C-alpha cells in the first residue's frame, strides 16, 4: 500500500495532509490523532456552519456540492502551484483550460450566492464576499502569469465575469431574459473594467431582489385575475400598477429621516386596502376595456422597478 500525501498551499483554511500508515491496532488515541492531523474537525465544522446558514432542502446534495467545491479549490490551487508562470504562453490549449477554469469559478461563485436569501443580511453579505474573492484574481496572492482579462492585479472582478454572474442570477431566479435585459443594461460593466466590491455587491443584491420582485408580480397577477374569467381586466391591472407607481414616487429619496418616514407613511397609505378598493372600483367603472395578459403585466411591473435602478458609472 502506498503512502499518499496531499498537501495544498495555505490559501484558505486547513491543510489536508492525510497519511495512510500501515494498519495497526485501532486504539482510541491513534484514531483521535489521525482525525486531528487530517483537520477533519475544521472541515466538518465549516460544512455544518454553511449548512445552518443555507438551510437547504436537500442536505445530502448540499453537502456533496460543498465538499465538491472545496475539492475543486484544492485541485485548482494545486495545479496553479505546479504550473510555471506563463507570461508569454499563448497556446490554445491553455486558453481552453483557462476558459474552463473560469467557468468552474463562476459556477462555484453562483453556488455560494445561492446559499442564503438576500433578506439574511449578514449571511448574504458573507457569501457575496466569498464569491467576489473567487471571481477576482486567482487566489488572494495574485499569482502572476494568469493573463486572463482580470484587470490590474489587486483590482477586482472582470466586467465580463460580473455581467455573466448577473445574467445567471436573474435566469436562476426565474426571470425571463427579455424582462431582465433592461436591468442588465443599467448594471452592466464593460469587459475591460475591473469591478470593485461595492459595485459587485450592489449588482448581485439588485438581481436577487429583482427576481423576488418578479415572482411577487407574477403572483399578484394571479390574484388580480379572477380564476374563472381568463386574463385579468386591463382596468384592474392598470389600477393596481398605478397604486404601486404612486407609492414608489412618493417614497423617493429624502434627506432627513423625518421626511423619509413621512414619505413612507404616505406611500403605504396609497397602497392600503381601502385606497386600493376605491381605485379599483373607479377603474372598473371608468377604466379601459379589454384584458391584460401576464407577460404585459410582468413587463410593466419590471419597468417600475428598473426605472429606479441607477446606471452604474
Amino acid at each position, binding site marked *: 500500500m502506498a503512502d499518499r500525501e496531499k498537501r495544498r498551499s495555505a490559501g484558505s483554511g486547513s491543510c489536508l495532509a492525510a497519511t495512510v500508515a500501515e494498519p495497526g491496532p485501532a486504539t482510541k488515541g491513534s484514531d483521535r490523532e489521525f482525525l486531528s492531523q487530517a483537520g477533519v474537525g475544521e472541515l466538518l465544522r465549516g460544512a455544518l456552519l454553511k449548512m445552518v446558514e443555507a438551510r437547504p432542502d436537500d442536505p445530502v446534495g448540499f453537502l456533496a456540492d460543498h465538499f465538491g467545491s472545496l475539492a475543486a479549490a484544492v485541485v485548482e490551487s494545486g495545479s496553479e502551484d505546479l504550473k510555471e508562470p506563463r507570461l508569454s504562453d499563448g497556446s490554445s490549449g491553455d486558453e481552453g483550460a483557462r476558459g474552463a477554469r473560469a467557468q468552474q469559478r463562476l459556477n462555484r461563485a453562483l453556488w455560494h450566492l445561492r446559499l442564503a436569501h438576500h433578506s439574511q443580511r449578514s449571511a448574504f453579505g458573507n457569501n457575496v464576499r466569498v464569491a467576489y474573492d473567487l471571481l477576482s484574481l486567482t487566489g488572494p496572492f495574485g499569482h502572476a502569469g494568469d493573463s486572463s482579462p482580470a484587470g490590474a492585479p489587486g483590482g477586482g472582478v472582470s466586467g465580463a465575469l460580473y455581467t455573466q454572474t448577473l445574467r445567471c442570477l436573474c435566469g436562476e431566479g426565474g426571470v425571463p431574459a427579455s424582462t431582465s435585459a433592461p436591468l442588465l443594461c443599467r448594471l452592466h460593466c464593460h469587459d475591460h473594467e475591473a469591478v470593485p466590491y*461595492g459595485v459587485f*455587491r450592489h449588482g448581485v443584491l*439588485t438581481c436577487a431582489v*429583482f427576481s423576488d420582485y418578479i415572482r*411577487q408580480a407574477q403572483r*399578484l397577477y394571479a390574484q388580480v385575475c379572477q380564476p374563472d374569467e381568463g386574463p385579468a381586466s386591463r382596468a384592474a391591472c392598470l389600477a393596481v400598477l398605478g397604486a404601486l407607481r404612486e407609492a*414608489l414616487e412618493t*417614497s423617493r429619496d429624502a434627506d432627513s429621516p423625518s421626511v423619509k418616514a413621512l414619505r413612507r407613511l404616505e406611500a403605504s397609505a396609497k397602497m392600503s386596502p381601502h385606497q386600493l378598493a376605491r381605485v379599483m372600483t373607479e377603474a372598473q367603472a371608468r377604466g379601459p376595456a379589454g384584458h391584460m395578459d401576464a407577460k404585459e403585466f410582468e413587463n410593466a411591473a419590471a419597468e417600475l*422597478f428598473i426605472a429606479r*435602478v441607477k446606471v452604474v458609472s
Partner: protein
Amino acid sequence: MCTCHTFIFLCYYEYNCDREQSKMSADDVTKGVACTLKPPVFLHFGGGDSKTQGCCSGVCVIDVALPPGKTIETITFKNFYTALVSVRLQRRSPGQEGAAAKWCTALRDRPLMTNPHTEAGAQDYYSIDRKQMQVEPDGVSSIRLILKQPSSAWLTFSVQDVRIFPRMQPVRKGRIDELSDWLLLVFPPQDPLDVASVSCRLQQMWALSQVMQSSQSHAASVGRFDVDGCYDINLLSLT
C-alpha cells in the same frame, strides 16, 4: 357604484330611525348617564354614644342612584387619595319586575394606590369596565362605591367626577337585515377580490424596491470617465 351608495343611504336612514326610537341620546354616550351621587358616608367605629364621635375607620361609602334598568358599560372617576375601591350593584333582573332588587359585588378591593401611604395613583383617573366586573351589570338601579383608605397620612379621601356610561343598544335587527337581504337579491355582489392580500403583496413589492434603493446609495462607482460613451474634454488631464 350606485348600488353601494343606495344601499348605504338606506341603511343610514333606517339606523337613524331606530336610534330615535330607542330613546338613547348622544349625551348618554359622551357624558354618561345622569345619575345622582349621594354625599359620602364615612364609617366610624366606637362611638355607640351619639355624642362622641368614633375613630374614622378609613371606609367611606358613596351611593349612586341611576334611572332604573340601565346596562352599564364603564364607570369612570377621578381618584382623590383612595387606596382601594369596591363596587356593589343593586340589580333587578328584567323578567322579575316585582321582585326586590338584590345587591351583589361587582368588584372587590381594586387597588388604586400602589402604596396607601404614598402619593402614587392618588389623583389618577380610573375606569372600571364591565369586563372587569364579576357580575353582569344589567338592569342596575343603584351602585354603591365602597372606598377604603387604611393610611392615616391623609386627612380625607374620596372619588370625584364619577360617570356611568351605558352600553350602546345594538341596532335592532329585523328591518335592516330584511332590507339588506332584499338589496342583495336585487343587486348581487360583484367582484369578490381579496383587496387585503393584493395590498399586502403590493407592499412587499414596494419594500423590495426600497431594499434595492437603499443598497444603491452605498454602492461605490466603477470610476468611469466617459459621459454617454464618449470622453468629456474637461475631464481629461493635461499631465
